[in-house]
Structures are given as structure tokens and as C-alpha cells.
């Protein structure tokens, strides 16, 4: 072992052994210090990924409770469980919570935890920024919920249309909480997205050329690129709204030359891509894990990966389909109708790829597999109802009715929650070292699946029967009573299913069967590590030779063989390997930062800044801004330890396996 810490050295090879001195050295370098300080300053992606998952599930529970309260109110006509104000606040918080505080963060949690493990790296490209994006997510969520606790709750729905949200019609602080909270939350999303994009092109294990990148990374990478382009629109919209409300600017006020539709364009330019942002990574969970249970690689991997990217690209050209009734010219409506139809094509690619994978494989009916198979059906139902709303003239009837509510829930629960739960069942053993209980899992799946369809299928009929969304009550005689009761019943069955899931998690954490490194005989690099993985993930950096490293002997894939046991230990402090963007040729030893409380302090400083802005404490806000800036300067102060440079002599080991032709990845 070398004694210097020269980052330009030619690294030495080592054999992997988890008890070796190298392993101990690595453990010392990467482990989080014990104690509360260590906990608060850790940058370990595994810890942060778990926190993302737990926090997002926490918000899922809050949003779910809000949904149940709403369904109690709507179960019977003319009910008075909630006042109109309360109902409007609860439905708004339900939407905000599920769409922003649950749906993306849960997927980010998966990616933060898994990316380095499936890419063969020791951390994401920017570990401290990773911690920062988690803390900002947490604090922005608490910021928005703080408003709820103190009676400053937004009540204008998650898409917050102006002028109902303008100061004259909505003078309370609820809308300001939402507006500032969303600008704040947008920072977290943007930071995480940048981290993923850089990681995907910089931190893949040597030999993992772009065509060998695991499927799961395609979804997150695509969504992250989408976020970087989409989030500015919504941050701007909320900032302008806040300016309108606080400083009488007139961006959305027709009396001052503004226009209310400007809000809708800005919001949906973000909002529609966001829908893909919160489903594409979930679909990629299925494309990654379903093949393991079908005992064969995914059918049409490259086509499905490309269609993932295509969906996102098309997703930027369909936002007006949320605005078909706003009086825009027919020609532009036709364009957006056609574009919305076109999105079905890449979705069809994925659906038929999953079905073909199941059909030509040997499906193993684990709980995770049940969630994935169930997801395919829900995906189709949510897809066709989307196709129906894309038919503009018919959408003039469907829009703003419960049909759209049914559609969005098939999309968000069917395409986000089901793959997420399947993903937890699949990766839980990797994260905790224990398998989840399969019997409880089956009960869990069927309760959720039946409850979901019982609750949300009738919503389509409610919409067709003319029930508009966002009404706090309805009168008898409109033909809605029975259906509403059914929906409420289904909601409670679904909630019982969610409860079973958390029960299973808790039971399995304590008493689950020991998993071993690879309980499902999966093919990804994450399954080559112990469960749970050590702090450094890999004792030696693997060298990848195919798309399915752990299956390649059986698939006879590629030319060389992936080297998991022999590779670079890079054990002199926190180090990982940087590689080229397309071919993943190793070209630099990356010095990775130590744990640091700076991300937490910066997030706290920003929280104070946003609180100051909310309460018009301008001096407080300015001071918080200065403190944040100071923390940022301290954080970014150059550290000799982190110096690195692309080595002239590339640290080649064996001749790295060349990516082969497209036919034989």
C-alpha cells in the first residue's frame, strides 16, 4: 500500500477481501463518526438516501391522512365534517404534499441510495451538495407544513391559479408560505438533479460505457435533465406571484398590463414535465428490477431507454393540454392535442417491453414482482385516460371533473407508488440486510391493489357523471351519492394497505430473514456488495464488462468478464474513480470530501432567510443571507486535500474492456 496521498499517482491493484487491512483502511476513511454530530454532518449517500426515503414516506402519511379526511367529508352529500375553508386547505395540502414532498423525493431517495452502488462508485459526484439538497428538502417541507400548523395554509390547489391567489382575493399568508416554500424546495430539486447528471457522466465504474449503464439510472438521469430545464419556470412563477402580492408588481394583473394566463403557462411549462419527472424514475425501477424476477434481461433495453428520453423531450411540448378551456386559438390547441397523443408512443414501447419480458421469461411471483406486474395494468389504465383527455373537444367536458382526478391518481399511485413499494421490497434486503416478510407482502399488495381500484375506478364514472373537482360538498340528486361512498370505502381499504406496508417494514427490520449479498440473484453491481453495504460501498472499484455484470457468465454477454474482486482499492482517504462520459475509461482519481456540517448550516441559513422574507423581517432576512453566504464561502474554500487533476498517465489497469458494438453490449 502506498504511503503518500498523491492524487496523481498510478494506483495499485488489489484483491477484494472484506476483512483485509485495505478494507479496514477504507472503513476508517468512509465511516461516519458516531454521535449526533456525525449524524448531522454525514455525507454518506446511503444515510442520506435512507433519510430521503423515510422523510418522503412521512409526507406520504401526512398527505394520506389529509386524503382520508376529505373522503370522510365527501362520503355523503351535504356533509359538514369540514368547513369549506378547511376542506380547501386540506385538498391543497394533500396535492402539494403528494406531488412535491412525496413523489419526487421518494425517487430521489432511491437514486441517492442506489446510484453509487449500481454505478460502481463510492458516492455521488458531490456528496456535500447531496446532503444540502436533503436538508433543503426537509426544511422546505417543514416550512410549508409550518404554515399548516400556524393557520397560514394555502387554499388554492397545488396549481395555485392567479388571480384567486392574488392579494385582493387571498390576503392571508398561506399563499406566501406556498410561494416561498416552492422557491425553496426548487433549490433542493435543482441541486439533486445537477448531482445526478454529473454523477452519471463522471462516476461510472471503468468499463461501464453509456450503453451498459443500468436502466434505473436512465430514468433518474432523464428526469434530472428535465428538472434542470423545468424548475426555473415554476420558481420564477412563484417568485413573480410573491412580488405581485408583496410589492404590487403586476405580472399577473390585467389591470396593470399583466395576464392571469401567464401564470398558467409558466406553471404548466414546469408542471407537465414534472409529471414525467415523478414517473420516469419509477418506471425505471420496474425496468431495472422486473427482469430479475423474469430471469432474463429486459426486452428492448436500448429502445426503452431511448423512449424514456423521448417521453421527457415530448413532455416539454404538451403543457397547454392543461389549458384547453382557456380560450386559446384552435390551431395551437390542435398542436398540443397531437403532441399529447404522440407521447403514447414511447409509453407503448415500455408497456410492450415489460409484457414481452414477462412472457418470454420465467416470472417468479415475489411481492416485488406483484407490485411491478400490477403497475403495468395501472399504467395502461392511467395511460388511456390520459389519451382520452388529449382529445381536445372531449377534454372540454372531462377537464376539471373527477375523471381527471381519477387519471392523476392512476398516474401518481399506479406509476409512482406501486413501483416505489415494489422497489422497497426489492432493495430492502440490500439496505437493511434483511428480507421483507413475503406473506405480509402478499396481503400488502392485494389490499393496496383492490383498495386502489375500488377507490379510484369509480372516480372515472363520477367525472363522467359531471362531478367537478375541488368541491367541498355536493347535493343529493346528482347521481353521485353511491359512487362517492364507494370511493371513500376504497380510500380506507387503500389506507389499510399502506398501513400493512409500514407494519411489514417495521417487523422485517427487527425479525426479517437474513438476506445475504444477493437474495434475488440480481445482475446489478449493488448485489456484489454485502447487505447492507460497507461505508465505502466497494473495497475495490469494479471493472465492468457488460450490462448485466452478475449474469454475464450465464448470458454469455460481451467479450471480457467483469472484475469484481480485483481492482483499484483507492484507499488513501476518501477516493473514488472518475471516468470519461461515454466510454467510462478511468481518467482521474477523485478526492471526495469529508463529512461536514456546512450543508446543514447552509440549509438552516436559507430557512432563516425564507422565514425572514415571509414575515417581512428584511433585516433578519439580509443577515440570514449573509450568514448563508459566509457558510458557502467556508464550504467552498479551496482544500489542498481535494485537489485533483486528470492524470497524464491514465491509471489503466488491465486493458479496460472496450465497449463492443451496439448489438452486444
Amino acid at each position, binding site marked *: 500500500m502506498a504511503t503518500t496521498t498523491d492524487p496523481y499517482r498510478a494506483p495499485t491493484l488489489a484483491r477484494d477481501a472484506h476483512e483485509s487491512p485495505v478494507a479496514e483502511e477504507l472503513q476508517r476513511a468512509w465511516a461516519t463518526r458516531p454521535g449526533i454530530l456525525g449524524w448531522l454532518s454525514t455525507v454518506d449517500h446511503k444515510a442520506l438516501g435512507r433519510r430521503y426515503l423515510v422523510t418522503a414516506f412521512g409526507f406520504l402519511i401526512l398527505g394520506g391522512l389529509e386524503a382520508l379526511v376529505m373522503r370522510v367529508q365527501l362520503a355523503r352529500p351535504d356533509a359538514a365534517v369540514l368547513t369549506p375553508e378547511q376542506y380547501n386547505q386540506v385538498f391543497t395540502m394533500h396535492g402539494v404534499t403528494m406531488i412535491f414532498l412525496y413523489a419526487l423525493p421518494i425517487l430521489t431517495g432511491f437514486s441517492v441510495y442506489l446510484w453509487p452502488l449500481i454505478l460502481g462508485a463510492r458516492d455521488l459526484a458531490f456528496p456535500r451538495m447531496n446532503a444540502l439538497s436533503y436538508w433543503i428538502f426537509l426544511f422546505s417541507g417543514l416550512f410549508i407544513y409550518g404554515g399548516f400548523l400556524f393557520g397560514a395554509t394555502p387554499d388554492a390547489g397545488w396549481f395555485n391559479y392567479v388571480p384567486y391567489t392574488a392579494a385582493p382575493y387571498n390576503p392571508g399568508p398561506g399563499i406566501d408560505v406556498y410561494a416561498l416554500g416552492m422557491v425553496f424546495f426548487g433549490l433542493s430539486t435543482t441541486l439533486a438533479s445537477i448531482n445526478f447528471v454529473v454523477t452519471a457522466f463522471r462516476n461510472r465504474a471503468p468499463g461501464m460505457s453509456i450503453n451498459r449503464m443500468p436502466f434505473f439510472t436512465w430514468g433518474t438521469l432523464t428526469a434530472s435533465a428535465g428538472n434542470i430545464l423545468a424548475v426555473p419556470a415554476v420558481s420564477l412563477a412563484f417568485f413573480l406571484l410573491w412580488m405581485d402580492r408583496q410589492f404590487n408588481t403586476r405580472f399577473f394583473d390585467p389591470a396593470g398590463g399583466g395576464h392571469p394566463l401567464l401564470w398558467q403557462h409558466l406553471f404548466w411549462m414546469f408542471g407537465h414535465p414534472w409529471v414525467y419527472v415523478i414517473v420516469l424514475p419509477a418506471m425505471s425501477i420496474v425496468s431495472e428490477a422486473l427482469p430479475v424476477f423474469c430471469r432474463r*434481461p429486459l426486452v428492448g433495453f436500448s429502445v426503452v431507454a431511448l423512449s424514456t428520453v423521448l417521453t421527457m423531450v415530448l413532455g416539454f411540448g404538451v403543457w397547454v393540454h392543461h389549458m384547453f378551456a382557456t380560450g386559446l386559438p384552435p390551431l395551437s390547441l390542435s398542436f398540443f392535442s397531437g403532441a399529447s397523443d404522440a407521447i403514447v408512443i414511447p409509453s407503448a414501447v415500455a408497456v410492450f*417491453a415489460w409484457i414481452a419480458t414477462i412472457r418470454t421469461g420465467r416470472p417468479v411471483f415475489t411481492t416485488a414482482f406483484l407490485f411491478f406486474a400490477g403497475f403495468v395494468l395501472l399504467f395502461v389504465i392511467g395511460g388511456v385516460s390520459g389519451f382520452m383527455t388529449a382529445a381536445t373537444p372531449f377534454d372540454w*367536458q372531462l377537464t376539471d371533473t373527477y375523471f381527471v382526478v381519477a387519471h392523476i391518481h392512476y398516474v401518481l399511485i399506479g406509476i409512482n407508488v406501486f413501483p416505489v413499494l415494489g422497489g422497497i421490497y426489492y432493495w430492502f434486503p440490500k439496505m437493511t440486510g434483511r428480507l421483507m416478510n413475503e406473506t405480509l407482502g402478499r396481503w400488502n399488495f392485494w389490499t393496496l391493489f383492490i383498495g386502489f381500484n375500488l377507490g379510484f375506478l369509480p372516480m372515472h364514472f363520477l367525472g363522467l357523471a359531471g362531478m367537478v373537482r375541488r368541491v*367541498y360538498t355536493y347535493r343529493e340528486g346528482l347521481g353521485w351519492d353511491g359512487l362517492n361512498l364507494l370511493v371513500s370505502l376504497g380510500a380506507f381499504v387503500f389506507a389499510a394497505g399502506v398501513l400493512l406496508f409500514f407494519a411489514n417494514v417495521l417487523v422485517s427490520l427487527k425479525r426479517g430473514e437474513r438476506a445475504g449479498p444477493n437474495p434475488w440473484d440480481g445482475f446489478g453491481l449493488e448485489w456484489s456488495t454485502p447487505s447492507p453495504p460497507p461505508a465505502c460501498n466497494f473495497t475495490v472499484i469494479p471493472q465492468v464488462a457488460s450490462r448485466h455484470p452478475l449474469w454475464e457468465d450465464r448470458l454469455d454477454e460481451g467479450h471480457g468478464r467483469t472484475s469484481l474482486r480485483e481492482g483499484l482499492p483507492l484507499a488513501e482517504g476518501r477516493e473514488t474513480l472518475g471516468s470519461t462520459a461515454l466510454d467510462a475509461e478511468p481518467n482521474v482519481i477523485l478526492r471526495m470530501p469529508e463529512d461536514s456540517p456546512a450543508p446543514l448550516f447552509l440549509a438552516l441559513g436559507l430557512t432563516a432567510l425564507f422565514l425572514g422574507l415571509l414575515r417581512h423581517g428584511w433585516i433578519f432576512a439580509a443577515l440570514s443571507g449573509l450568514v448563508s453566504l459566509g457558510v458557502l464561502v467556508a464550504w467552498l474554500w479551496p482544500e489542498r486535500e481535494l485537489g485533483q487533476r486528470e492524470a497524464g498517465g491514465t491509471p489503466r489497469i488491465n486493458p479496460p474492456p472496450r465497449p463492443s458494438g451496439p448489438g452486444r453490449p
Partner: protein
Amino acid sequence: MKTRPAPCPAPLAACPAALADAPLDYLHTAGPAADPLTRLGWGVTIVSLLVVAVVGGLLLAALRRRPGDAAGLPAVTRSPAGLSWIYLGVGISTLVLLGSAVWTFATFASVTRPRSRPGLRVAVTGHQWWWEVRYEGGHAAGGFSTANELHIPAGQPILVRLDSADVIHSFWVPKLAGKTDAIPGQTNLAWLQADRPGVYLGQCAEYCGMQHAHMNLQVVAETPEDFRAWHDGQAEAVVPPGARPVAAASPEAPGGTGQDAFIVRCGLCHTVRGTRARGILGPDLTHLMSRRRIAAGLLPNTVGNLGGWVANAQALKPGCAMPAMELSGPELQTILGYLETLR
């Protein structure tokens, strides 16, 4: 004039029972602005159901084909088969999509504007939370305005000019036409037509605040003769028989006529044409008793409901612009008595 109701195709004639008697359902429509939408709607619905059935069937068949052994994990295989599924499935989907896109555009073109020149133009303005309906000119008596009730002659297209007085609302009478938003700072045009006389329910469809749930309107389609009679009646200003000359009314005098009490207590917000009540914040009440429901559809227009509404609207429709009036019993009776004369 076409009177063909929009079709309910034979295989689906047994539409969910819930829809059969739902006044806001739009799978059974009643005019040429809505019928093509309904036909397109049935079309895409049937295509969608077929897609779910076919793909669901394929999924089920795939699941049952050769399930792996529960005891252990089957061997990993690499089968070249499967890609043809994608080609075939995506190919067929694309054709279906193209067909439905063409149908969508054709439907679009057929409902963008009515076939014939609209005979009647009406201005509808959305308020939190009621609909103001204004009939302009075209008649010697000039325009007049009413609330939450849109009377139209059956069998001819009606042009609706949509504005909003406050926030965004959406004008929706599902049996007669799709939605069009009423947006402040922008005038949208919509058209609708009822083939047969009848009462058609409408509802604000864009969330507009606390009482969005209670923002209905009724479209009353009548024969041209009945409509003319209604229109002429509404255009009249009302001077209740036996009322003292307006100028002599003394607002302070207790026990004054109902009209006086109305002018004092209600006239700042409401208009009764022909009196000094000229408020414009609330609905024009000139012919209040001719309306079927009050409070934007919340209650049937009975004396009892009217009494409850005038006495304490906030209890019935919290947040609405109508304040709780705090009237004495006799005062309330006086005003109610007056309102009953507004026919």
C-alpha cells in the same frame, strides 16, 4: 333542426346506472355544440376500454404462460424473442393514435363555431360565487340582467360572451357544450344550443374559492314564443302596485313599505329596476321570484328558503358576499313580503 340525441352505442347502452339520472353527465347530450364531443368521447372511451382489455389480457396471458418455480429461482436465460412485441404493439398503437387524432381534429373543426349565425348573444360574467347573465339590446326595452338562470330559445345557436368580475371561473353546461373559462382581462366566446326545450344544469368548473361548490346555473331552453314572452317580461322595470312614489320614501321611517326597507337594507348591493335600489355588487333582483333557485343553485326559491337566506346567508353559504343581515323579525317579514312581489 337536428334533434338527434347523442348516441349511446349499443354495446354500452347499459351505461353505469349512476349516469342515467345524473343531470350533469355528458354522455347524453342535447345540442350540436355538445353532441360531436359526445360521439368523440364514446369513440375514445371504447378505444380505451379495448386497449385495457387487450393489453390486460396480454399481461395476464404472459403471467400465466410459464411461471417460475416457487421453490427456487429459475435459471437466467437470454432469449432473442420479445422485440417483435414492441414492434407490433407500437405499430398498432400508432395507427390507433393517428386515427383518433384525425377524428379529434375533425370534431374540433365541427364545433369551433355554429353552423348558422347565432340569433341571440348573451353576456355571462362569473362572480364569486354566482353567474350574472346580461341580455343586451336587440329589443326596444334595452338590456337587462338576471342571475344564475340563462334563458334561451331552443333550436338555435346562442353566443355567450364570457367575462369574470374577480377570479377565474369556468362556464360549463355539460348537456349543451364543453367548458370555457371566464378569465379576468380576457373575453372568451362560447356557443351552445339546446335542441329541445328543457332545463339544463350548469356548474362553475374552475376552482374559484370557498364556495366553488355552490356556483351553479340553470339554462332554461324554451320555445321561441315562450322565450320572447319571458324576455319581454324580464325587460320590464317593476313598480309594485300600491308602492308610494320612490322620492317620498323615508329610509328612517320604521314601518315604511317593504320597498323602502329593501332600498335601505339591500339597495347598496342589489338593483330592482324602477326603484332607487341600484347596487351592482349582487344579482339584479328585479324579477327574483321568476327564478327557480336562489344563491347560485344552493336552494329552491321558496319563501322559507328566501327568508333563511336573507336573514343569515353566511350560515347557508359561508364566505359569500351576502352579509348576515341582523334584521328584526318584522323587518325581515317586510322585506320578504316585498321580495315576493318581484315576479
